[in-house]
């Protein structure tokens, strides 16, 4: 049987199915030399220009880089580094529109050239045979070479294949009607390309090297023949011109007669294919130590005055290239990146050239109508002519695919081997109904891929959900077990009758006593709160004077603007309180808690927390939080008094009793606290005193205004400065900020104070209870203060967990 090589030598080639002959437009550019690279004002270098992962950027904004300097390194085999195409400064690293049909943005490095074009240090290696294979591969990888034919597959992955290679095929077919970039590269640089082929030969040691080139490139064929004249295992295969003979699978079929099965890489058949431009880049990288920073781009189309091939730096905006070729921008025209068959329209002309960009097409409206203009042809119904199936090089059924794609029948699409479609566009080209078939396939492909991802994700989520359910089950069982054991152990100890048991018993008794005390306190609070409402009513109703008085105090504590509002609203507030009290008269003993509750609900975060406390789920949290509330109430109230006696001359006589307590506490504090905590406490206390001075007003204000006021007071706390009032007036910023600050501040202060103060608190608790019993007025003020403190404490609740430890301590010492 005749071998493949013999057959090729005879000049006979196999055929792939289908294919089309679109009108040749290569004459526009194929006879002009490649114009040299010019440096644009700005280079936009996308970090990912290939198939695979993006590398990590290793330069910063403001860095000066030299030409050829590496900009991103790669840690996985499927990522490819990028390099500075010229010397200059990195002016930005940001999202920019990239050359992709979607017009979406991805991370790009913006390089402003300094026009000096200074190279980095290069090590020229005239004889690559001196290098080991690994060194050559490393050089290729470091030069950032990815397939330059269109797909952008990382080259070092392709050339480091381990399988035995029979054929190395160099793809010079270039079948797209307009593109001549490879043609020109062959005409001008075939020796360098040959060096690249030799390097590949050295790396892959194929039995044969086939260069596939379409017969319409006479000059390039001549140049190639001249260069390869003395090498006998390289065959130049001049193949008939037919689109898409440049497709990988198609060219393999033409040259070797082998059909690459669906879902199989050519390398498993012992075939590796490289583009000529890639060969050139490999030679440049290995011999001249030049990374892939420029490429030949065909700038063509009838809308250009002088269409030509240009050496373009990677990152050059296409607008710069088209203006170099005399593009008339005045008319409504569009640009296509890639060829007319497989390219895509660009959203604007500031899209950069990347490693895979082989053509910029600026067609006139007659040549190729813009898909976005009104003159573009309209799709009509399929007439079932079957021409698409005749031309399909992958032997698919485009018409069936189209129906299934429209019906989103993914199972059917996969059955029809949608993923074997190479998106060559031949079917759409011949379609008499002008159906954009390829577009439907692309959409369907994207949807199927997405669906597969979702399926994988769903499967993962399911597994995790099940795992979690199991874990919860296990934990529940373990917890029950633990409780049981603990209970048994306790019982056993109780029964032994030792001293330890006694102490434990007494501890239980203590706890019970504490609970009782708490209850008693709560009932007192309720009673006094009721009184406080009536008394405050009296207070405000008696005359304007007390209100004025309190107003001035408010002014010290909260925003001055708010204070005015209070005066204006005093009357209304009294009325509203009246109604409130009337409404609540049947259950007036509960009025106070309601009031407190309302205040507690002022803050969103706090409300949530309290609500959550009611859920059984957060039992432990709520316990500690409750303890915390009590604690803070007790902490803050003496402080209130303390500061009131020290700094606020306008403190009411109700606070006198508190002053005594405060004195005692102050003494204890002086002993126990460090300077910082003391000052912190003083600050908090100061703010709290302001709270207490405003309390009558707040008591009066039952409506939403209270919310604002309390919030502002809270702000004052948050600010923690003696000049609080002034600051407060400025604060009207985002709620979240305030919340966070309040929470943070309150939490900080308390976290520091509480552990130290457990002793004093137990003192102050008893004294505060005493004082409550002593005088109604005192209690009223106290309640007011407690309420304020309560608000603050509820803020702290948000941090309840963090304080769990200290609050526990607190309860015990109490």
């Amino acid at each position, binding site marked *: 049987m005749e071998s493949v090589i013999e057959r090729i030598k005879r000049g006979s080639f196999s055929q792939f199915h289908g294919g089309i002959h679109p009108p040749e437009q290569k004459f526009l550019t194929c006879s002009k030399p490649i114009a040299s690279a010019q440096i644009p004002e700005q280079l936009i270098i996308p970090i990912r220009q290939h198939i695979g992962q993006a590398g990590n950027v290793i330069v910063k904004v403001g860095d000066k880089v030299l030409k050829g300097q590496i900009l991103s390194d790669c840690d996985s085999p499927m990522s490819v580094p990028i390099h500075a195409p010229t010397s200059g400064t990195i002016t930005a690293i940001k999202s920019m529109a*990239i050359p*992709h*049909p*979607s*017009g*979406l943005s*991805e991370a790009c490095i913006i390089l402003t050239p300094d026009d000096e074009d200074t190279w980095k240090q290069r090590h020229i290696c005239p004889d690559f045979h001196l290098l080991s294979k690994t060194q050559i591969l490393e050089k290729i990888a470091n030069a950032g070479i990815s397939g330059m034919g269109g797909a952008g597959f990382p080259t070092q992955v392709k050339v480091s294949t381990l399988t035995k290679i029979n054929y190395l095929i160099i793809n010079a077919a270039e079948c797209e009607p307009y593109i001549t970039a490879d043609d020109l590269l062959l005409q001008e640089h075939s020796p360098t390309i040959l060096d690249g082929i030799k390097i590949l030969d050295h790396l892959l040691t194929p039995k044969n090297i086939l260069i596939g080139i379409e017969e319409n490139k006479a000059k390039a064929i001549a140049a190639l023949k001249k260069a390869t004249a003395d090498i006998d295992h390289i065959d130049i295969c001049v193949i008939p011109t037919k689109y898409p003979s440049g497709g990988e699978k198609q060219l393999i079929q033409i040259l070797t007669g082998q059909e690459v099965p669906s879902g199989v890489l050519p390398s498993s058949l012992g075939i590796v294919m490289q583009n000529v431009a890639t060969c050139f880049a490999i030679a440049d990288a290995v011999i001249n130590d030049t990374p892939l920073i420029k490429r030949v781009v065909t700038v063509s189309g009838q809308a250009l005055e002088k269409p030509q091939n240009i050496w373009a730096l990677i990152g050059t905006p296409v607008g710069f290239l088209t203006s170099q070729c005399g593009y008339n*921008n*005045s*008319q*409504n*025209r*569009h*640009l296509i990146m890639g060829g007319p068959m497989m390219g895509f*329209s660009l*959203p*604007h*002309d500031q899209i950069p050239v990347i490693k895979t960009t082989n053509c910029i097409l600026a067609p006139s409206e007659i040549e190729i109508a813009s*898909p*976005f203009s009104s003159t573009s042809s309209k799709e009509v119904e399929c007439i079932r002519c079957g021409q698409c199936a005749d031309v399909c090089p992958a032997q698919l059924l485009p018409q069936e695919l189209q129906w299934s794609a429209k019906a989103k029948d993914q199972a059917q699409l996969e059955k029809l081997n949608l993923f074997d479609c190479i998106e060559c566009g031949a079917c759409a080209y011949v379609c008499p109904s002008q159906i954009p078939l390829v*577009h439907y396939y*692309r*959409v369907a*492909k*994207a*949807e199927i891929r*997405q669906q597969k*991802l*979702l399926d994988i*994700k*769903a*499967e*993962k*989520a*399911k597994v*995790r*959900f099940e*795992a*979690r*359910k199991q*874990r919860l089950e296990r934990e529940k069982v373990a917890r029950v077990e633990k409780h049981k054991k603990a209970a048994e152990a306790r019982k056993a100890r109780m029964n032994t009758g030792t001293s330890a048991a006694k102490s434990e018993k007494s501890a239980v008794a203590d706890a019970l006593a504490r609970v009782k005390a708490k209850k008693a306190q709560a009932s007192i609070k309720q009673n006094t709160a009721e009184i406080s409402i009536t008394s405050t009513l009296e207070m405000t109703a008696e005359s304007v004077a007390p209100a004025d008085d309190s107003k001035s105090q408010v002014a010290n504590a909260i925003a001055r603007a708010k204070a005015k509002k209070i005066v204006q609203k005093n009357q209304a507030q009294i009325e509203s309180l009246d109604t409130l009290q009337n409404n609540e008269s049947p259950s007036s003993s509960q009025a106070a808690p309601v009031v407190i509750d309302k205040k507690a609900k002022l803050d*969103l*975060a706090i409300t*949530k*927390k309290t609500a*959550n406390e009611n859920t059984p*789920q*957060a039992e432990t949290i709520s316990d500690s939080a409750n303890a915390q509330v009590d604690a803070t109430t007790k902490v803050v109230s003496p402080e209130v008094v303390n500061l009131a006696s020290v700094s606020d001359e306008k403190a009411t006589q109700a606070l006198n009793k508190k002053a005594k307590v405060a004195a005692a506490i102050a003494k204890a504090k002086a002993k126990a606290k460090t300077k910082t905590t003391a000052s912190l406490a003083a600050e908090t206390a100061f703010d709290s005193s302001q709270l207490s001075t405003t309390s009558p007003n707040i008591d009066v204000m039952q409506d939403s205004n209270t919310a604002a006021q309390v919030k502002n007071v809270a702000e004052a706390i948050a600010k923690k400065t003696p000049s609080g009032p002034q600051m407060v007036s400025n604060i009207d910023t985002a709620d*979240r900020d305030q*919340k*966070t600050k309040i*929470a943070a501040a309150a939490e900080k202060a308390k976290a520091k104070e509480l552990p130290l103060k457990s002793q004093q608190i137990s003192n102050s608790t008893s004294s505060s209870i005493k004082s409550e019993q002593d005088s109604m007025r005192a209690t009223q003020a106290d309640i007011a203060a407690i309420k304020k403190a309560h608000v603050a404490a509820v803020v702290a609740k*948000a*941090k309840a*967990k*963090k304080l769990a430890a200290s609050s526990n301590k607190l309860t015990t010492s109490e």
Partner: protein
Amino acid sequence: MSTIIAILVLGILAALFGALLGFASVRFKVQGDPLAEQLDALLPQTQCGQCGYPGCKPYAEAVANGEAINKCAPGGEDTIKKIAELMGVEVQPLDENHEADNSPKVAFIIEEDCIGCTKCIQACPVDAIIGTTKQMHTIITDECTGCDLCVAPCPVDCIEMISVATTTQNWQWDLDSIPVVKID
């Protein structure tokens, strides 16, 4: 006489066939409900509970037992269509109680606001939140199903649902949506 014979014959035949069917019903007893499994495979597994069931599996079981098929908001129209196909019933529009927006989302914790309360961790059905008491939490984006369940428990509202950004990787080839700048 012939009437009695007729009745007898029919009666005996009926008894015979009845016995046969009785035997068959024992012999071919169907165990379990493979339908629920299949339904479960169709559901998006966000475990979001928007259907009113604690997870996708319980909803699948409920659908197998006659629950409405249109309660899966994250799955949207596509899922309803698939369930309808499997169940052999008519496609229904998504239940009105659910918001129609089922664009893919992931939760995001504003980390500077997080107070480390672990409430969201307890709420997450797929354990996609890492963090511990008093430590900042964060979402494992790859594992997040966008179910929304962690948003409500957060006491400081620091969890947001962010739409998954369209990238070149998951772009759906919607050419009409490209912002085209006229070149002129």
